[in-house]
């Protein structure tokens, strides 16, 4: 079973991530599922009526605005990084936390590597499914690399200039 990083700790994965081309057929009733945005948009009532937990995942080019008024339906919002150098979802996570007040899990999936974690954590990600070939224990060290930050972000509402002693 894959382990993911959640709030700075390793936990066993309990969610199933459905692939992009998944259809409603054969979707289990009680599993906890993270479904692609397209499937959700098409079948939201059916998906919400299930007993299992519901999450949604977005491609890097998909916009959070599309479901901004329905965020309460999701326990998890997973944001895909097609390449670790694609920073679009850093803005998505930031907006989820600061603009839309989303309190559920915001998870980074895809090409997620240790050296991105600190910044991703700052903009509001609290869960990370590291790329499979990488050692998640090692990646945990990323969270203690810096003691101070200049900017306000999702983790720190006040910029340093309002906090300097």
């Amino acid at each position: 079973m894959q382990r993911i990083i959640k709030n700075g700790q390793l936990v066993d994965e309990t969610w199933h991530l459905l692939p992009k081309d998944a259809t409603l057929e054969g979707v289990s009733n009680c599993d906890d599922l993270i479904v692609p945005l397209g499937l959700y948009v098409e079948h939201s009532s059916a998906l919400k009526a299930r007993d299992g937990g519901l999450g949604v995942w977005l491609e890097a080019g998909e916009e959070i605005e599309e479901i901004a008024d329905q965020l309460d339906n999701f326990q998890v919002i997973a944001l895909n990084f097609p390449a670790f150098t694609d920073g679009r979802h850093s803005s998505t996570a930031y907006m989820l936390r600061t603009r839309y007040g989303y309190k559920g899990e915001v998870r980074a999936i895809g090409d997620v590597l240790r050296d991105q974690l600190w910044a991703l954590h700052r903009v509001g990600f609290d869960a990370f499914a590291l790329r499979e070939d990488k050692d998640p224990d090692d990646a945990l060290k990323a969270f203690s690399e810096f003691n101070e930050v200049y900017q306000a972000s999702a983790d720190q509402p006040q910029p340093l200039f309002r906090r300097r002693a």
Partner: protein
Amino acid sequence: MYVYDSYDQDIIESRVKQFRDQTRRYLAGELSGEEFRPLRLQNGLYIQRFAPMLRVAVPYGLMSSAQVRMMAKIARDYDKGYAHISTRQNVQFNWPELEDVPEILAELATVQMHAIQTSGNCIRNTTTDQFAGVAKDELVDPRPWCEIIRQWSTFHPEFSHLPRKFKIAVNGAVSDRAAIEVHDIGLEAVKNEAGELGFRVSVGGGLGRTPIVGSFINEFLPWQHLITYLDAILRVYNRYGRRDNKYKARIKILVKALTPEVFAERVNAEWAHLKDGPSTLTEAEVARVAAHFIDPAYKALEDQADALAALRAEHPGFDRWASRNVFAHKKPGYAAVTLSLKPTGVAPGDVTDKQLDAIADLADRYSFSEVRNSHNQNIILADVEQSQLFTLWGELRELGFATPNVGLLTDIICCPGGDFCSLANAKSIPIAEAIQRRFDDLDYLFDIGNIDLNISGCMNACGHHHVGHIGILGVDKKGQEFYQVSLGGSSGRDASLAQILGPSFAEKDMADVVSKIINVYVETRTDEESFLDTFRRVGIDPFKERVYAANH
């Protein structure tokens, strides 16, 4: 200049540790080359033709003498004894070993320096006027604003993987010596009718393959909102800038595709969410930062017009130097002095470790222990007493910094080109040298007057050829090195892009081509008309006719 407090120091020391570990993991095979690449780039480390190239950040071009001595030490201990001043006011080393870079960064941190975000797809070093704080035509000192932007942009978590690199420049003077209109964001500090400070904001300028002059999208942004507005611009760019094609990924392409008006609307819509939020700047913060840039302990002096005139009459060499390399200062009795790093036969912008040490000493003795790097790749002592100019000139001559050519044809901006850079189509340094040798008659150079001649070894335009009055671009023609010439560019206020003259030339013809262009100018100009003015009046045709006529 800005001095780190414990917060700033802690952040760069953490960075040194982080990069040391990243390098270790790369060398141990835990990080692939592809995974390490963006990490090292965001630390200014390129892998080049012969060795890695390390670009050290010099925020807005300002260095203390202690920092200059550190540049000398690094050049000596880790490089081949020289460093290079870049067109973005930074310092580059061409020969460090990858294994040594963590140690170099640790040494830099001891003098409050770093290489953070000097390359890679992130917000780069903010640049400004090399005469900031001392220029007579300055309205607002841009340095505190540059430092505020430096802190905001350093490890900005949301904008660490932008579609492409991102450069911001700030100007606060009547003349634009910072070339703000060819930057991703250009900020011009201005005062409104009520005397309040704000910024005119230009976006989408840039050179490279698709040179574009930026568009002003905000005529007056009150200073309190600088950071939230920048956040808004960057968020729109981060989300909607193209990522499918790296040649179309700069913000200029997005601004052009949307039109500046629509881009501005998007920014305003985004800004509406951020405006007046916690990142709104406070008077206390601006005062804290600005306190680092107050005037040094200037003496109450008088201008030395008569004494200097007498010296100039007596010493023609001093006269030449004073007319080109000395710049008027806002304080009576003071002057700013440019050390020319463009003597013939030296790659433009190169300095040796010994010269750097000597510059640090000069800074201590003549100029409150500070220097500035200019985007024209020279070094400036900004606060020299006029009564010391003559002695300083003597010392500069000994050191090789007194070439009286600042702003003249031989003060060439030139990228490293094919001698060092693996992207080059052609060499650029030998072209600069051939032109310098051709125009070795100082009287003639003075007569020609102000000319920006800029050379890039490929269309990435590191040498700013698009905004040279004369621009030279290295091109590849069936595996051979050729040079395309363009005329009429300008990076100043009313910036313009140069027009291509015609088919390209072989290396051996370049000095002749430049001579012909200059001849046309000298024959066509009216009294006191500069090269650029003449070009703008007569257009490209007379130049074209002369240059190509002789070939046939």
